[in-house]
């Protein structure tokens, strides 16, 4: 395989020659194929970057994103292959085979589905255990486990399984219509989201239950009622498959209906099934990568407990998995009062060891006020019983538990639900954001606006205040604002991916909104009494939830302590599918065009294919000259005051019209290639300081002396000197530079459409040992990163790219690259010296800022 540089050398051998006009025409048609290939290449690389970003930054995406991007990607690469083959008269037909093989793999990955569930439509709670998650959903499977394996008291009842809901959906042919309505739904458009959500829920609630299913439900209901109360009341609880797992908690996302009588069981069932499409559930699934049709809504139907007192029990403190006490939240009546944050509650810390002493007891304010006035208190015996249950369940399930419970009028304890205590990030230690001791030592903090409340989710966030009082406010909530509310209603949860922090006047750590805030890593303070009156909309505040303080303005030292947001998608089914697909997309195996393995049959990924096609297309553009008898004169020596060591080949319209094609030289003034002129400006803006002050004997430094060095005779070709070529047109420039021991390639297209615009940079090699070469590449990477390039590094090779920006913006980037090509050569030699590195970095950044300020376009 011949490399680009070998091709360049062979340009000058003697071949039959075309007339200049013929050559120009033939060249032009080739150039147009080349240009189309570059546009497809640009699209493909951008799509890959978008997919990589989805994996790394935790932006939410669904299957439609994966399917859409894979399709667009393969179409663009297919087009590249076709353009290359037209450019090379079909000599790369061999690319078809690896391309087909890769796309077939991708199709299989995208088509993969979770295994379907089988079994009965209705199961009694007496038959259910944790192994039946795929039939009854996580919540009911756990409850069955508590009842049948742990041996604790749970309400009698039964479960309408995944088979039941699938039957209901199929008979009414609902899924097609649901998918149609969800298609292309913009999650950021809250108004559209609520409309679509309400429409789908209506569709489901109004569909008739299949007769056989309705009969079976009523028959099971009747069995529960054998004890012949006047009227049996049941609670219907959602138990979606996929909810409440140790990785992902859909806490409270779905409906629970209490006190349902016989005549309403069927309707209540459908409404809970419809709850799968509540707006926050749609957002939640999308963010976490669940496909809607893969989530099956099972429903538990449980005998109502006539509760005297109910609450939530954490087997450990939610923010400390090693705490030596359990935490209990209790309120009179039903458990829902605690979870939705509306009731006045008492909070107890109870020792985890016999005799389960109460360590302390606090009263919290609920929406209905009252606070400490509550008369109904948990007795010491009840507290001890709960603590013991908490420890038992934690031991059984092997992780701290979040338990809902009720004690009935007869004093009997019922467990209503047990699930793993929310972990903030799947795969990460279950400890919430560590309270950095540094935060306490920060001395120069301003005085807070106010302090107090309970930290329900640690961390620091900053943004403008936005108070939400109604669903109308909900629609107007701006991204990045601090959510301020009176009561932490579960409905506000759909705002959490947009909120910088949450402040609520009431509520406590068990509220659903608190659970979701912890999962999203959104700092939150509840029970901050004066929040609504003391704050004003749109005022910028910094919320230090960890310390329970709110500051005016932006407090940088505190924000510096804030941890990065967790990636909510990690570990989800859709995330896994994307990650699997990416194995056939982004890894780059073909990095070295001079390697004997740089062949079409070595392409293992779509990235390899783009790289191969691009490299070969550039070679073809040279090759063209070889095949058709490229005139020696096609490569013009650039003249700036005097002949330089740079050569220019015009592909199309890169020279002024009045340029004499017979000339051996081209004056800088004759060049109209926008990208080339930008690079040149960067190359020549500052004189090169010369080789760094280390011994460079034997490194051929002579060729580096200056871009304007006129002493080099172009006729003399030493083995060290490969010529440096600009391939240009008005909008395009491809510059290959081999300066001594390093190789750099800059390519850019600056046209009228953003779709076509890009700047790319490849850099490889150096004379110093590997460690220093890597340090230099890191230095260059850092600088390019700072100017918005996307940088990838593999061993001592680096590629940087930026695309779909305006011509002006990209010209600035080209100036930077021009500067770096000249001024970073040989600094690998001094990379061992940290002081020197810092010094170089400072000088480079200072130069670059001067360079960009003197240019016509301002930096953004």
């Amino acid at each position, binding site marked *: 395989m011949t490399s680009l540089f070998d091709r360049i050398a062979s340009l000058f051998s003697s071949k039959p020659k075309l007339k200049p006009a013929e050559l120009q025409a033939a060249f032009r048609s080739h150039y147009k194929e080349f240009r189309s290939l570059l546009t497809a290449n640009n699209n493909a690389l951008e799509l890959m970057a978008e997919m990589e970003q989805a994996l790394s930054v935790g932006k939410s995406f669904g299957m439609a994103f994966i399917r859409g991007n*894979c399709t667009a990607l393969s179409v663009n690469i297919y087009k590249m292959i076709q353009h290359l083959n037209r450019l090379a008269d079909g000599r790369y037909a061999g690319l078809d085979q690896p391309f087909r093989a890769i*796309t077939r793999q991708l199709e299989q990955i995208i088509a993969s589905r979770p295994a379907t569930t089988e079994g009965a439509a209705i199961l009694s709670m007496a038959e259910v255990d944790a192994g039946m998650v795929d039939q009854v959903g996580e919540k009911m499977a756990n409850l069955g486990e508590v009842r049948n394996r742990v041996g604790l008291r749970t309400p009698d009842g039964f479960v309408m399984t995944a088979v039941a809901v699938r039957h209901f959906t199929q008979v009414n042919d609902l899924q097609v219509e649901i998918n149609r309505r969800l298609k292309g739904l913009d999650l950021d458009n809250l108004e559209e989201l609520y409309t679509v959500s309400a429409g789908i829920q209506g569709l489901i609630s109004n569909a008739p239950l299949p007769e056989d299913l309705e009969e079976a439900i009523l028959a099971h209901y009747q069995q529960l009622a054998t004890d012949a109360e006047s009227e049996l009341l049941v609670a219907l609880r959602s138990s979606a498959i996929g909810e409440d797992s140790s990785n992902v908690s859909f806490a409270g996302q779905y409906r629970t209906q209490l006190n349902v009588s016989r005549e309403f069981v069927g309707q209540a069932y459908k409404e809970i099934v419809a709850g799968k499409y509540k707006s926050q559930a749609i957002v939640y699934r999308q963010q976490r990568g669940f496909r809607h049709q893969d989530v099956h809504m099972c429903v538990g139907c449980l005998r109502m407990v006539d509760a005297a007192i109910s609450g939530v029990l954490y087997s450990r403190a939610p923010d400390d998995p090693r705490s030596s006490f359990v935490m209990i939240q209790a309120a009179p009546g039903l458990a829902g009062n605690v979870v939705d944050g509306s009731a006045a509650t008492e909070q107890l810390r109870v020792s985890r060891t016999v005799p389960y002493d109460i360590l302390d007891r606090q009263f919290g304010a609920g929406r209905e006020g009252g606070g400490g006035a509550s008369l109904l208190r948990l007795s010491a015996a009840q507290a001890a019983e709960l603590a013991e249950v908490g420890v038992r369940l934690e031991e059984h399930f092997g992780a701290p538990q979040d338990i809902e419970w009720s004690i009935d009028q007869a004093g009997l304890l019922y467990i209503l639900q047990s699930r793993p205590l929310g972990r903030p990030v799947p795969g990460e230690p279950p400890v919430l954001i560590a309270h950095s001791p540094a935060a306490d030592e920060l001395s120069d903090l301003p005085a807070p606006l106010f302090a107090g409340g309970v930290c329900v989710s640690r961390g620091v966030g900053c943004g403008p205040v936005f108070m939400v009082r109604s669903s109308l406010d909900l629609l107007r909530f701006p991204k990045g604002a601090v959510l301020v509310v009176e009561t932490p209603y579960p409905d506000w949860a759909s705002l959490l991916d947009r909120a910088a922090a949450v402040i609520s006047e009431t509520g406590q750590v068990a509220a659903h909104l608190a659970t979701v805030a912890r999962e999203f890593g959104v700092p939150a303070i509840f029970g901050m009494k004066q929040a609504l009156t003391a704050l004003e909309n749109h005022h910028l505040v910094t919320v230090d939830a960890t310390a329970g303080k709110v500051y005016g303005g932006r407090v940088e030292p505190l924000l510096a302590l804030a941890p990065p947001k967790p990636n909510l998608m990690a570990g989800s089914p859709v995330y896994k599918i994307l990650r699997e697909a990416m194995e056939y997309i982004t890894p780059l195996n073909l990095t070295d065009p001079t390697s004997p393995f740089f062949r079409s049959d070595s392409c293992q990924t779509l990235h390899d294919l783009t790289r191969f096609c691009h490299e070969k297309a550039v070679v073809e553009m040279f090759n063209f000259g070889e095949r058709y008898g490229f005139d020696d004169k096609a490569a013009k020596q650039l003249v700036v005051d005097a002949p330089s060591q740079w050569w220019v080949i015009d592909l199309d319209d890169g020279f002024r019209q009045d340029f004499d094609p017979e000339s051996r030289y081209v004056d800088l003034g004759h060049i109209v290639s926008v990208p080339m002129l930008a690079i040149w400006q960067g190359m020549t803006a500052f004189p090169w300081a010369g080789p760094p002050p280390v011994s460079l004997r034997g490194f051929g430094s002579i060729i580096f002396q200056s871009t304007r060095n006129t002493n080099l005779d172009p006729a003399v070709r030493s083995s060290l000197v490969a010529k440096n070529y600009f391939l240009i047109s008005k909008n395009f420039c491809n510059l290959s530079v081999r300066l001594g021991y390093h190789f750099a390639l800059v390519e850019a297209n600056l046209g009228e*459409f953003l779709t076509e615009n890009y700047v790319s940079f490849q850099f490889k090699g150096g004379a110093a040992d590997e460690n220093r070469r890597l340090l230099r590449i890191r230095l260059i990477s850092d600088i390019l990163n700072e100017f918005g390039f996307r940088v990838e590094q593999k061993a001592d090779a680096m590629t940087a790219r930026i695309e779909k920006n305006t011509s002006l913006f990209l010209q600035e980037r080209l100036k930077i690259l021009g500067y770096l090509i000249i001024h970073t050569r040989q600094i690998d030699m001094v990379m061992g010296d940290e002081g020197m590195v810092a010094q170089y970095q400072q000088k480079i950044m200072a130069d670059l800022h001067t360079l960009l300020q003197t240019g016509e376009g301002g930096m953004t």
Partner: protein
Amino acid sequence: MTTDLKILLIDDEFDFVETTCKRLMRRGYSARIALTCAEGLTIIESAWPDIVVLDVMLPDRDGMDCLKEIKGKWPTLPVILLTGHASMQTGLYGIDCGASDYCLKPIDLETLVEKIVIAHRESRQQGA
């Protein structure tokens, strides 16, 4: 930017195609709508459009069939496929059948316009 392009949109999703048409015209392009393949073919027959944007799902005919007929009779007329359901197979098959590009809904107008102008420009080149 060239704004004298005549763009034919063949798509049965009326709301989408109507707003797209209006917005294209507001930018100075000429645009027309066909809700079926047959309707589209009649307009192409009159030699009106410079470029066609074709939905893959049509009420009267399979979009790919429609594409094949257009490219069979008017091989130099560029056709961009636009669809709400991505499929790698139909995407590649579409390119094989001569489509210039394959885009997914939802698409913002800016992107669509660029794709239209670029596809049109590329189709001119091959003839030249």
